[in-house]
C-alpha cells in the first residue's frame, strides 16, 4: 500500500468520525468547527494524490491540524469518549504516515570515498547560474568556514519551494517544546536538534532519534541497546538526549552558523565535494542547488533531485523569521 493510500484511509476514518459527531452533538460552536474542518478534510482527501510525496506530506499535515481542531472543539462538551478515541486513532495513523513520507525522502549518506570526480565542465553544467561557483573540494572546517558564510548569506528558497519550506517551519514550531527539553539537557541548540530530526527522522516522535527504531523498546539496529537506562516504552526526549550524548554533541561548544553547517554536512557525508556538487543536504530547494544526489545504493546520480529542503535553507528561514539568532 502506498503512503498516500494509507493517508487517504486515515483521513476517511477521521471524516467518518467527525460526520458522526456532527450528527450527535448539539453544541453550536462544535458544529461550526466540525463544518469548517469537514471541508478541510474533504479538500485534503480530494487532493492527496495530486502532489508528490512531500506535497502529500503537507496535505497530511493540514489534515492533522484539522483533526486536532475537532478534538479541541469536542473537549469542551460532554459525551465525546468514543469520538475522541476514534479521532485519536486516525491522528496516530496520519502522524505515522507523515513521518514515513518525510523519512522516505531522507538523503542517503554521501560517501566520502565515492567514485571518480565529475569533470569541472560537467559539474558546472549541473549548477544553477545563481551559484557562486563550485564548492571547495577540501573537507576540513578551517578551509570551508568562509564558504559556508558566503553561501549562507546569499541562499534563498526557490519561489516554487516555499510551500515545502513552510511545511518544515510548521513541524519545527510544533515540536519546539520537545526540542527545547532536549536542548536544556544537552546544551545543543534546539533548532539544530529540530532540523536534524526532520532531515533524518521525518519529525517522527514515535521513534528513537538514534536510528528510527520504535520507542516501544530499546534500539535494535546500530547503535543497539539504546538508551541503556530506563524502561521502555521511552519518551522521545529521553531517548533523544541519549542519542545526542552518544554522538558526543553535548561536548561541543562552537555552535556558530558555519560550524553548524559543517556538522550537518559531515553528518550526511562530504562525498558531494569530491564531485564538485553543492550538497543538497544543505542547499536543496535553494538557488544554489539544482540536481545531483547520491542514491541509496551509494552511487551518484547526476539527474536525481533531492526532494527535501536543505538544512541551511531551513536555518536561514528560522533566522529570517527572527525565531533564532546565529553568529
Amino acid at each position, binding site marked *: 500500500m*502506498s503512503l*498516500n*493510500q494509507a493517508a*487517504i484511509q486515515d483521513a*476517511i476514518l477521521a*471524516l*467518518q468520525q467527525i*460526520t458522526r459527531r*456532527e*450528527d450527535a452533538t448539539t453544541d453550536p460552536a462544535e458544529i*461550526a468547527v466540525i*463544518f*469548517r*474542518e*469537514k*471541508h*478541510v*478534510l*474533504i*479538500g485534503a*482527501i*480530494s*487532493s*492527496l*494524490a*495530486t*502532489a*508528490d510525496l512531500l506535497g502529500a506530506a503537507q496535505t497530511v499535515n*493540514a489534515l492533522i*491540524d*484539522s483533526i486536532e481542531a475537532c478534538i479541541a472543539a469536542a473537549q469542551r462538551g460532554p459525551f465525546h469518549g468514543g469520538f475522541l478515541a476514534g479521532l485519536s486513532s486516525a491522528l496516530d495513523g496520519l502522524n505515522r504516515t507523515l513521518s514515513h513520507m518525510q523519512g522516505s525522502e531522507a538523503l542517503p549518506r554521501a560517501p566520502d570515498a565515492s567514485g571518480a570526480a565529475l569533470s569541472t565542465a560537467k559539474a558546472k553544467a549541473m549548477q544553477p547560474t545563481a551559484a557562486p561557483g563550485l564548492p571547495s573540494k577540501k573537507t576540513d572546517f578551517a578551509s570551508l568556514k568562509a564558504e559556508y558564510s558566503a553561501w549562507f548569506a546569499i541562499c534563498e528558497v526557490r519561489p516554487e519551494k516555499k*510551500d515545502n519550506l513552510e511545511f518544515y517551519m510548521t513541524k519545527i514550531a510544533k515540536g519546539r517544546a520537545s526540542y527545547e527539553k532536549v536542548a536544556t539537557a544537552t546544551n545543543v541548540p534546539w533548532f539544530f536538534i529540530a532540523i536534524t530530526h526532520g532531515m533524518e527522522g521525518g519529525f517522527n516522535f514515535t521513534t528513537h532519534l538514534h536510528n528510527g527504531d520504535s520507542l516501544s523498546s530499546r534500539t535494535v539496529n546500530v547503535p543497539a541497546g539504546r538508551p541503556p537506562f530506563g524502561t521502555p516504552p521511552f519518551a522521545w526526549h529521553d531517548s533523544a538526549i541519549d542519542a545526542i550524548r552518544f554522538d558526543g554533541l553535548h561536548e561541543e561548544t562552537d555552535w556558530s552558523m558555519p560550524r553548524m553547517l559543517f556538522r550537518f554536512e559531515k553528518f550526511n557525508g562530504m562525498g558531494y565535494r569530491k564531485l564538485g556538487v553543492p550538497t543538497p543536504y544543505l542547499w536543496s530547494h535553494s538557488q544554489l542547488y539544482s540536481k545531483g544526489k547520491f542514491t541509496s545504493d551509494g552511487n551518484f546520480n547526476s539527474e536525481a533531485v533531492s526532494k527535501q529542503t536543505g538544512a541551511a535553507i531551513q536555518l536561514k528561514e528560522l533566522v529570517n523569521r527572527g525565531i533564532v539568532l546565529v553568529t
Partner: protein
Amino acid sequence: MRFCFVIRGVVLAAALLGTGCASAPRSELMRMQAQMSNVRAAADPLFDDLALAERRVGLHSATSPAIAASLGGPPAAPTASGCVAHWMGEPASGFLGALCPEHIAYENSIADPPGTASLRRGLAALIDATAALLALAENRNLAEAEAQIQGLAGALSGFTQVAAAPFGPTSGAAAVLTLLGPVAQQLQPLANELVRANNAVRVRELILQNEDNFNRLIVQLRRADDAMFQIFLSDSEIRIALASRADRAALRAGQPRLINGYRLLLSNYAVLLERAEEAWKAVVRAEKEPASFNLIATRAAVDEARVAAEAIRRAQAAFRAGS
C-alpha cells in the same frame, strides 16, 4: 528460421492456423482480442462511473478548501498555475470566484476528467493495436485494418492532452497514471509501422518488438485498480459527509452495497487484465516458439473468455439492479 508446424488431418486446426507456416500467430491474436473485448466490457461502465466520481472529487479539491477558508480555516493554497479561487456566498450555496485552469478538467461537461481519460486511452490503445495486428495477420487488406490503426494513433495522441492537463485527485493513482501515458507512447512506433506493414511476416516482427510495450501497458492498467477504488470510496464518503442529516442515514445504509459492488467489478477488471496479459504472452510465445502452439489450450482459452463475458454481464446487471 521458422519451424514449419503442421497438424495433419485436423480440420479445425487448419482453420485456426490460417495461412500455415508463413502466418503470424493468428489464433493467439484471436484469443488476445477476445480477452481485450472482455476487458472493455468490464471497463466501459466502470470508467463511466469513474468519470462521474473523479469529476465530483476533483471539484471538491477546489471548493472544500475555499469553503473552509471562508469560515476561518487555513487559506486555500494556490493551484499549480498560481490561481487562487475564493468562495463566494453561503457555504452551502456559493461558488468559486475564479475559474482556474486546473478546474477546467473537472468542470467541463465534454471530456473525461484526466485520470479516467488516461485509463480509457490506455485501454483503447491496447484494443486497437491488437485488432490491427490481427487484421494484418489474417492478411486482410490495409483498408480493413486502417480503422484500428487510426484508433490506435488517436488513443496515443490523446495522451499528450492528458499529460498536459493538471493531474487530478486520483487518490494514490498519480504515480500509476502518470506512468500510463509514457508507457502507452511506447506503442507509437508500432502505430507508425502498422501503416506500412501489409504482410504477416512484418506483423510477426512487430509482435516481438512490442512484447514489453504491451506487457507494461497491461500492468499499468491493472495497477490503477486500487486507485480507481480509492476514487469511488472517497466520492462515497464525501457525499455522505456533505449530505443533510436527514439523508445521511440512508446513504450510510447503502454504502456497503455500493462499495462492495465496486470491489467486485474492479476485481473482475483486474482478473480480466491478468488474462489479457497471459493471452499476450501466448501470442509472443507462439511467435518465438511456433511448436508450442496448443490447439486445445487455445480453444479452451477462447471458451473461457466467452464464459467470462457472460459472468461480467451478470455481475454488472446485479450491481445496477442493486442486488
